[in-house]
């Protein structure tokens, strides 16, 4: 046991911290929230030059072949600073290609992703808004050498700028909802696809994507026909841990900013941080952060080493969802009115706790997985 980061990871962390502080100030974050694209192509290019999009891609496909845990180190920094854009969408959508893609699909897509030339996302949720297979109704019907996808996806992260969309469809009605799910890699320029950005709490560009009789060649099936749900589960698991890592960084910023402000804001002739009522809340915020941190690190370590960690990933997600929301809420309250202003940085974090909470499975969704994993019938 050695719970320290490796030297390589420390370097990655330091580089990321310096880069984001310089290249992604909060003025840019606010600008991007208001912008139509929601990300900065210039910044995206620079991130690609640093190797970030290729971090988890093996060298043979143009990446740098780091581990999943390395990725979470980077994500923690991204969450710490806030980096709007399609980084999480792209990396989490890369995993299905890495794990289930054909050689042709890998050769065709991975080098482009690594170079920052291809933004990727996954279209999972539909009108039910649930993360289990019962929510997948959108049909893909075989027609000659292709499938026709018809229906609407919702909450698709950055779909409006994605070059390809991994679309989770139903290809067979069966007894169990998990059976009959098929994934397709869809070029978003295909005729019949339209996209609209939904207004959300974090202004993070979740989209409604309509597929109207969209023709997708059979060779774009990702994985095995009707057997796609296992890939979705893998992606939800990795995505959950990834979002947790991002949240840990955000939680840390909330704690640091709150402690700093409490030392500086004077009321009743003393810094408000001298009031024990506030000190104990800050101690609790710090405690919540530390408990989350090692829970997430452990899940990331397991995932990174190929150990089964369905339970651990869901535990982390269910737990961190609540911690992020609570800590960022307390961050607002301990700042007082000033942090209810949209000009303040804390609300950027508070609002993102909502997005972090729903992405890759809500608290109750993951708790139900945990309930099964601990052996409840």
């Amino acid at each position: 046991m050695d719970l320290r980061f490796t030297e390589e990871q420390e370097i990655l962390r330091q580089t990321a911290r310096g880069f984001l502080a310089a290249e992604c100030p909060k003025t840019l974050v606010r600008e991007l929230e208001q912008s139509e694209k929601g990300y900065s192509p210039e910044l995206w290019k620079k991130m690609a030059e640093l190797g970030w999009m290729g971090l988890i891609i093996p060298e043979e496909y143009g990446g740098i072949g780091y581990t999943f845990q390395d990725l979470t180190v980077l994500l923690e920094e991204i969450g710490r600073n806030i980096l709007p854009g399609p980084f999480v969408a792209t990396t989490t959508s890369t995993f299905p290609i890495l794990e289930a893609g054909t050689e042709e699909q890998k050769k065709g897509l991975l080098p482009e992703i690594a170079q920052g030339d291809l933004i990727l996302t996954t279209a999972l949720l539909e009108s039910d808004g649930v993360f289990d297979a019962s929510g997948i109704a959108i049909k893909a019907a075989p027609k000659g050498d292709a499938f026709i996808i018809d229906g609407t996806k919702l909450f698709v992260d950055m779909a409006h700028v994605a070059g390809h969309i991994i679309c989770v469809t139903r290809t067979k009605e069966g007894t169990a909802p998990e059976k009959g799910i098929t994934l397709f890699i869809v070029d978003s320029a295909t005729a019949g696809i339209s996209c609209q950005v939904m207004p959300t709490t974090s202004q993070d560009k979740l989209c409604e994507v309509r597929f109207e009789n969209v023709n997708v060649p059979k060779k774009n099936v990702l994985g095995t026909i009707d057997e796609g749900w296992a890939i979705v589960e893998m992606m939800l698991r990795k995505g959950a841990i990834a979002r947790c890592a991002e949240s840990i960084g955000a939680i840390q910023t909330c704690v640091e900013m709150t402690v700093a402000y409490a030392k500086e804001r004077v009321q009743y002739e003393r810094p408000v941080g001298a009031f024990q009522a506030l000190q104990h809340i800050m101690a609790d915020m710090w405690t919540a952060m530390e408990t989350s941190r090692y829970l997430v690190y452990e899940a990331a370590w397991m995932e990174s080493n190929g150990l089964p960690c369905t339970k651990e990933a869901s535990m982390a997600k269910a737990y961190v969802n609540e911690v992020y929301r609570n800590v960022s809420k307390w961050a607002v309250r301990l700042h007082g009115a000033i942090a209810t202003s949209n000009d303040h940085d804390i609300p950027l974090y508070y609002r993102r706790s909502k997005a972090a909470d729903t992405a890759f499975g809500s608290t109750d969704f993951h708790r139900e997985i945990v309930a099964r994993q601990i052996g409840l019938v």
Partner: protein
Amino acid sequence: MDFSLTDEQKSRSREFYDTCKDLSKKRPPSLVGFEAIYELDECWEYNMYCAKEFAKKGWLALGWPSEYGGSGDMMNRVLFAEARGYYGTPGVDIFGVQMLAPTLLQAASEEIKREFLPPIARGEVMWCELWSEPNAGSDLAALAATAVRKGDEYVINGQKTWNTGAHRAHWGFGVFKTDPAARKHHNMTFLLLDMKTPGITIRPIPYLDGSAPYCEVYFDDVRVPAKNIVGQEHEGWAVVNLLAGFERSGINEIMSMMRGLEQLVAFCNETKRHGQPLAKDPLVRNRLAQLACELAAARALAYRVADLQNRNEMSLMDASAGKIFFSELGERFAFMAGDILGPYGQVRTSRWAPLNGIWEKMFHEHFITTISMGTNEIQRNIIAWYGLGLPRMR
């Protein structure tokens, strides 16, 4: 980052688990919760029996230097604590083995080490902690009991209170005021004393569940050899702080909760309400799952603390955070389990009590960890003042 155990550690851990499992075959059914060992004769005997068994294997001296009969390292101690926590096996004296021994190793004279460490390692001598007084709780330095030097003895007068198992203990360690003229924190001495010394009167305190594992201890001209000192005369405060740092990491309690959760899950699977297993109730599922998440978080943080300790680094903040978290998790768990058991949650150990009444016991015992070892409010002060650097109120 690496959470894994080495093969050697894994096999050591298996050995700890197997031994504790074996010992649990002799466990008296009346041993429910953490404190019954001090309460009932058969439980105290079982405690002593387990201690002797552990001593035979050298496990009461894990992490000690070999010159004092020690073997293994800190990580072994953590793995051992896990196994004992899981099976609720007593036998490792919190006061002697867990707190006093490492303190002596760091702060005591060679003579004291040679005299007091071997009986601890042999599982023969059990200790109690004589610190708190009626008017010195969190503010321990406000203590009033005195030890006056007379020749080669100290003569002790005064009262201590809340001393766990003082009526069972063979020896006690305490702090007493030795220099009334000196300023706070430099006026007390850390002494070791035989609980059979004339002049000591021990009275049980009725605990809120009707048991009496804690005591008041009165000192009336109690004579203690002056050589029984740890650290410097009048500088006992430094020893107190050192010892407080060796208090429980929480691993033991966390593993005990893990076992509790497993048993509760099994209970919910087997028990029918409204014609179906309790486990099918979405509310029960959600609450148990939430608890499992928190328990995993507590354990991960306890590993973090252990990992630091293994490298002789210590984060005061992490240790305090871990203590706050696992103890308050204990409260939540006790209340939640009580809710799930419904009216049975109030039944004390008896034929009506599910799970041998453990959750009724926990309704009372969770206070052990939130109040003792420095209250959780004091832990929050530590994080705020020493960790976050917030201004300390005067």
